[in-house]
């Protein structure tokens, strides 16, 4: 009985020691890899920023109008800084994934390979989001200007609706590209979009029929009045 009790304790201590001996170097290796990844990421960012600064990327983008596209999209950071940040996070992410691989823990095996396989989809999703953001800003601006010039009340609300509509479409496309609950995203988007259109149709067809008629009449009347009263050129 006493012997068995001792054996159990010794076995447990031995097992823990064995596991610690297994995990500790891997943990240290993972932490080292994270630290190295961070250092390399910082170095790559600084090198890229200097090289691109020397190549006058910001100036070139400003002259070509690319900087203005970013500003119109609400992005105030310069292209050099953006490229630097993207490189930093890409390198640091590789460091993190390598560290996960080094842990050799169940569930982390193949993380790097899996993540690398996802990269093209992530890139496409990011591009879709960036394009959607720029398109949303452009269309919202066009909408607010057109609505104000047509003297439509609530122009800002109309523009915000257009902006969110485009952003939601872009987000749905990006999520679909990433394969995140594809069916659920499509179904949710379809129901939400169809519901919004139906609600608008019902509002104008039933509830706000008179309002829509008056708005249209008022617009046409204004156009006639303007044409009669003043010539501009």
């Amino acid at each position: 009985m006493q012997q068995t009790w001792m054996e159990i304790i010794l076995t447990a201590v031995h097992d823990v020691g064995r596991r610690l001996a297994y995990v500790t170097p891997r943990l240290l290796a993972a932490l080292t890899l994270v630290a190295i990844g961070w250092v390399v990421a910082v170095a790559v960012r600084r090198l890229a920023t200097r090289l691109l600064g020397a190549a006058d990327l910001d100036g070139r983008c400003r002259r070509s109008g690319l900087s203005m596209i970013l500003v119109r999209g609400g992005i105030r950071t310069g292209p050099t800084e953006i490229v630097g940040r993207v490189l930093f996070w890409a390198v640091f992410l590789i460091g993190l994934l390598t560290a996960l691989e080094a842990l050799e823990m169940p569930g982390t095996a193949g993380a790097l390979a899996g993540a690398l396989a996802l990269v093209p989809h992530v890139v496409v999703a990011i591009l879709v989001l960036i394009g959607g953001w720029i398109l949303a800003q452009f269309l919202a601006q066009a909408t607010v200007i057109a609505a104000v010039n047509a003297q439509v009340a609530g122009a800002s609300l109309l523009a915000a609706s257009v902006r969110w509509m485009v952003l939601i479409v872009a987000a749905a496309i990006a999520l679909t590209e990433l394969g995140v609950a594809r069916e659920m995203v499509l179904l949710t988007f379809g129901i939400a979009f169809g519901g919004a259109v139906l609600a608008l149709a019902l509002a104008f067809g039933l509830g706000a029929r008179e309002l829509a008629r008056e708005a249209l009449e008022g617009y046409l009347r204004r156009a006639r009045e303007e044409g009669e009263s003043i010539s501009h050129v």
Partner: protein
Amino acid sequence: MADRLGVEDVLGPEGLAALEGLGPLELVAAVIAPRPVRSLPAVIEAAGAGLACAFPARKAAVLVAGGGGEGRPPGADPVPVVRIPPAGPALRGRAVLAGVAASRHLGARATAIVDAGLASFVPEWLDRLLAPVVDGTADYVTPVYARAPTEGTLTSNLLAPLARAVYGRRVHEVLGGCLALSAGFTEKLPPAEDWTDELDGHGVEMRLLVEALTGAHAVVEVPLGPKQLDPGAATTDLSRTLADAVGALFRTMERYTLAWQDLLGSAPVLRRGAPPDLLPPGGEVRRDRMVRAFHLGLKDLLPVWEQVMPDDTLRQLYPLGLLEPDEFRFPAPVWARVVCDFAVAYHERRLPRDHLLRALTPLYLGRVAAFVSEVQVGPPARVAEALEQVGRAFEAEKPSLSARWR
């Protein structure tokens, strides 16, 4: 590649065939008809009658440039009327270039360009337009119309004062709908590929004017009668009209930067004839609607305007948002500042250019409302005084505009 405007580059096969056997000519009246308009037959007839009556001994023809004209039976007109469809899509600029290039090809010493939508065009106007070119005193003739103060407000409050400040010459009409050119002027015009940015809208006419103002060309103004446009010829979309006309002027500022940046002050253009009459205001002007458009712009377009105008300009606009239509004022110096800010923002491409130009519409309507309330009381001389104030305000902004234009 030709280094001058050639007829082969702007006319289609049908147009080139129509010119065969027509020249050489001394005078040409080119009627610009990119689209069909009701006034076209009357304008063609007036142009033909003007050539036949005022210059009976000179060989002349009317060229109808554009796809808007129907064929006319031979012998129905006192001078030959020939359709010359331009190559490519039916755009206004193409039609103007086609008329100028065809006239040059035919050896004409004087060319009148007349908009087919200029419903008030009469034969006497052609004589007044062409005479200064024929007698050698002008290379570019521009009209001055008898106008009510409420007519041509985009010209009187924006295009003319900005052109005055930028190019240093005081022309009354910037896009007058008719003009005349000498052979010396048309000879120097650049080739067709240099005009590709200007083919839609009034860009070609604007650039012809600026070529005349910045080059060593004699510019003469001739008083004509009232200007009436065919209702079908002009768009009812004000923001589109504004984007077309103002965009064309801003583009010339980019193209001719070296010619204007160091100019200060302005000089009048030689006028041949008595100043035109000031007509009484015709029809009711709804200032309340214009002021409401301005207020709506201040409420909803502020995020857009913030990308165009600096804070000190916006600070001058905020108090105007509190003024009711009866007391609404938009001082000329503030207006001049606003327009110059838009010009700089256009040049720097801070917004998509069409958005930027259309975003000027509520501000323009505010300025028109203030101008109308300013000139509708008091003697007629008050109108000239108010317009002079606008011109001086733009001239005062010129140094700042030049400094910011990089």
